[in-house]
């Protein structure tokens, strides 16, 4: 909080609402049986319905409805047992029917809430206004021919959920956290893969500013189709500054649609209000209203997976993790699953530490996701077991871990190969201790004269003599016993 733009006349705060278009995970399109696979050759996944051929009629994909209801439940939102598809009419070359089938005044999901975990540990609730189902348009490709455009209808009819927040977001950072949290929930639910690069999640940001202390809602600008969390934050930052400058210099802000240019880091006017489409929404007469009973909702509710907020609560309560560590682990479903796999047979706090510090460090460095981790959860768990049962020391463990990253081998194999087993045999340790004491009479004298901190030096010598394999605690015990005798 506290993101204030200082002007000459006022201090300004931001009012932000986000509209996220999330592609529903579904094999088939919203109103036809065509495939939704990414990356197919142009116009290879197009039915007569998707191409808007004469006489073709949409038939609703029931799975997409389930996915939307699941998402609504995940957002703790009101599920509308009756909702209506409406046509949004406008012309575009890659929209074959001349209208988009969407939902207007009767969406499938109503008001809900998303909780943001702020970096300072506080929680912030952002209202969800609605979620509705709609079909995607195709794609126009303008740069393949000097004066022609190509149309690819593979995306035409792909099911999308439009998730609209209330204008509760106040800072670019909150916008970023909102998007990440929403993406996390969608991935947990398995209703959207949240892949912004492939366009399966896109964001429009509605931005306005107002003097701090005011409750008015001033004219907003809509920044369309931003395709990364970072760009959304940057676009909001730029746009807010621009609007403040307008007001401060005595001007006004016009309601318009703007585009974010990530190369220049600025937003540009795309369409002013005068040229805004009149979409002429009306209920689609080709489709019946979506209606389902409470049992349908109850069944989906029952099958809902554990969501990040609940998982976080469980990790802190059952595993004794800090809220921060738990938050880091649950943010991505795959990370949380990995962690739980690691923690199965070992100390969960130690496991959290290893996953967050060591494993995430390696993944970041390599720029890979946890799915491509060079170290399996099972192996990492085993490594931690080896530490806990004193087979290896923490220091040795770091070396073993590095070898695991490089080779993908099990920790046992590496320990075995490199003969790294910690020496816990008292005989061997005692022999090493006796040798060091015998060779360093002067140091022994110093210790005996009261310089007890010399113990550390003796431990170091024993470790060195055993190539680091001796158990440091056992060395220390043995040395004390002999030196104090």
């Amino acid at each position: 909080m506290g993101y204030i733009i200082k002007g000459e006349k006022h201090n300004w705060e931001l009012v932000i609402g986000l509209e996220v278009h999330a592609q529903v995970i579904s094999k088939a399109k919203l109103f036809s049986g065509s495939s939704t696979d990414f990356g197919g050759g142009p116009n290879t996944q197009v039915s007569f319905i998707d191409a808007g051929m004469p006489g073709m009629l949409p038939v609703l994909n029931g799975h997409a409805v389930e996915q939307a209801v699941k998402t609504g439940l995940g957002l703790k939102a009101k599920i509308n047992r009756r909702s209506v598809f409406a046509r949004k009419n406008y012309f575009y070359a890659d929209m074959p029917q001349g209208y988009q089938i969407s939902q207007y005044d009767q969406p499938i999901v109503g008001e809900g809430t998303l909780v943001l975990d702020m970096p300072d540990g506080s929680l912030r609730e952002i209202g969800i206004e609605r979620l509705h189902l709609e079909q995607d348009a195709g794609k126009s490709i303008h740069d393949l021919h000097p004066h022609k455009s190509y149309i690819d209808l593979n995306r035409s009819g792909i099911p999308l959920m439009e998730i609209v927040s209330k204008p509760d977001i106040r800072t670019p950072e909150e916008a970023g956290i909102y998007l990440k949290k929403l993406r996390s929930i969608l991935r947990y639910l398995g209703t959207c893969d949240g892949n912004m690069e492939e366009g399966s999640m896109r964001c429009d940001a509605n931005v306005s500013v107002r003097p701090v202390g005011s409750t008015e809602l001033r004219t907003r600008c809509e920044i369309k189709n931003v395709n990364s969390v970072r760009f959304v934050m940057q676009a909001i930052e730029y746009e807010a500054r621009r609007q403040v400058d307008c007001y401060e210099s005595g001007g006004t802000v016009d309601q318009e649609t703007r585009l974010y240019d990530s190369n220049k880091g600025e937003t540009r006017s795309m369409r002013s209000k005068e040229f805004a489409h009149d979409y002429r929404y009306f209920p689609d007469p080709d489709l019946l209203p979506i209606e389902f009973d409470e049992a349908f909702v109850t069944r989906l509710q029952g099958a809902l997976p554990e969501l990040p907020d609940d998982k976080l609560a469980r990790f802190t309560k059952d595993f004794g993790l800090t809220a921060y560590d738990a938050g880091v682990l649950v943010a991505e479903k795959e990370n949380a699953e990995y962690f739980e796999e690691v923690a199965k047979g070992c100390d969960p706090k130690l496991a959290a530490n290893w996953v967050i510090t060591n494993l995430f460090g390696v993944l970041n460095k390599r720029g890979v996701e946890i799915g491509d981790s060079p170290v399996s959860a099972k192996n990492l768990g085993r490594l931690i077991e080896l530490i806990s049962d004193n087979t290896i020391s923490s220091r040795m463990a770091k070396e073993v871990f590095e070898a695991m990253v490089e080779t993908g081998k099990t920790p046992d194999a590496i320990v075995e190969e490199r003969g790294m087993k910690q020496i816990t045999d008292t005989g061997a340790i005692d022999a090493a201790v006796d040798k060091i004491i015998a060779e360093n009479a002067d140091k022994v004298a110093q210790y005996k004269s009261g310089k007890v901190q010399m113990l550390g030096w003796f431990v170091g010598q024993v470790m060195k003599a055993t190539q680091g394999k001796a158990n440091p605690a056992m060395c220390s015990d043995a040395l004390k016993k002999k030196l104090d005798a």
Partner: protein
Amino acid sequence: MRPMATTASSAFRKLSSKGAPVTHLTSLTIADAREKLAKKEFTALELTEAHLAAMERAKDLNAFITMTGDLARERARESDKRLSAGQGGTLEGIPLGIKDLFCTEGVLTTAASHILDGFTPRYESTVSQKLRDAGSVMLGKLNLDEFAMGSANITSYYGPVKNPWKAKGRDVELVPGGSSGGSASSVAAHLVMGATGTDTGGSIRQPAAFCGIVGVKPTYGRCSRWGVVAFASSLDQAGPMTRTVRDAAIMLRAMAGYDPKDSTSAQLEVPDFEAALGKGVKGLRIGIPKEYRPAGLGPELAALWDKGVEWLKAAGATPVEISLPHTKSALPTYYIVAPAEASSNLARYDGVRFGLRVDGKSLDDMYAKTRAAGFGAEVRRRIMIGTYVLSAGYYDAYYLKAQKVRALINQDFTDAFEKVDAILTPTAPTPAFGIGEKSDDPIAMYLNDVFTVPASLAGIPGASVPAGLSADGLPLGLQVLTRRWDEETLFRVCQVLEDAAQFPLLPAV
């Protein structure tokens, strides 16, 4: 049996070559032809050839946009194979015309619009497929008002269709009604044994009345709309147009049925409509709506209507005066709802993927040029009306209000059917008029549908039966309406009227 049939068949063939007796084949009803084909009195190919010959002779009617003679012969031969193997369907070998609003695989489909130039679908509409599956033989694609928008079949890009009827003593070409004008004209003139029509506000019933044939608009949802070029989705409904009530019952049964590809089609068993015939109307209560007697209703039609009531009474039914108080709002309501849906349904004709394209300087320019060149005046008018009534600021006053009135009209019928089993009205306020008349006055044209539109808005079934002739010898029709999904009663009432009227069908030419 077999040698006899062969003899009969060859006899027909022999006679056919001489010419005249071909008319025997084109004058048959579907029911008769079905029987005679089964008895092998003639072949499906002979039946088809006779109709193709009639089509050639009657080209002047302009009833067809596309004739598919070769395809028809091929299918007739297949029918003959099935018939001789005893595997014929319910319409095996019956030559039919298909309104050119139904998409037909591999056959040009135009909706009588320039904008669909060269459009040959790679799919077959559910209804035409069902008719094919029943063994019928498509002779061609029938002319209509452009995108089914019109009541006189004068808006077709392919020119007006003529009514085979002429007024006594006047050599004026008359309209066949519309939008299923080609269907009505070709059935009346014995070019086909039956035809598909579509009815959005009266497009089956009104042309049936104008051409002196039977036209049935079943309950909304009875026939699949899949593959039928859409005009107004919440109103469009396919139905049969035939020369007899029995033929309509036979044909509707083949056309109807649930289609998972059309979300608005009903998951109901299709009754054997033909089996309902002959049950009469004894004990039925027949509603006579007092609001259907407007000032513009000619005395002849008023008299015919009274006669219809008498016929039903004589057959044991009880006439009951009823009120459908929102009738006067039906036409204005229809002319908001239908154009609104049409304005959206016709957005796909944009020059991008199929049909006509007129190049332009930009995408918007291409759209404007293509649509200006591709759509005729009436279609453009309705797109503009529809766009207007859905616009921000007007939606509530027009579209939303129209939906509310539509619900009231529906309620009128629900209330009426508490008291009666069927409703009898005239089909259209006048008989057929001359080509060119009323064409500069859209409102006068829209008034043609004043009696048919309310049932369309309510989604209930309705039929027109030819019931008499005007003083100058033109067909007049009576309309029967029944409860939703009660086409059986509809057919019963229609048949009683048909029997009583003894309507003089045109002779086969």
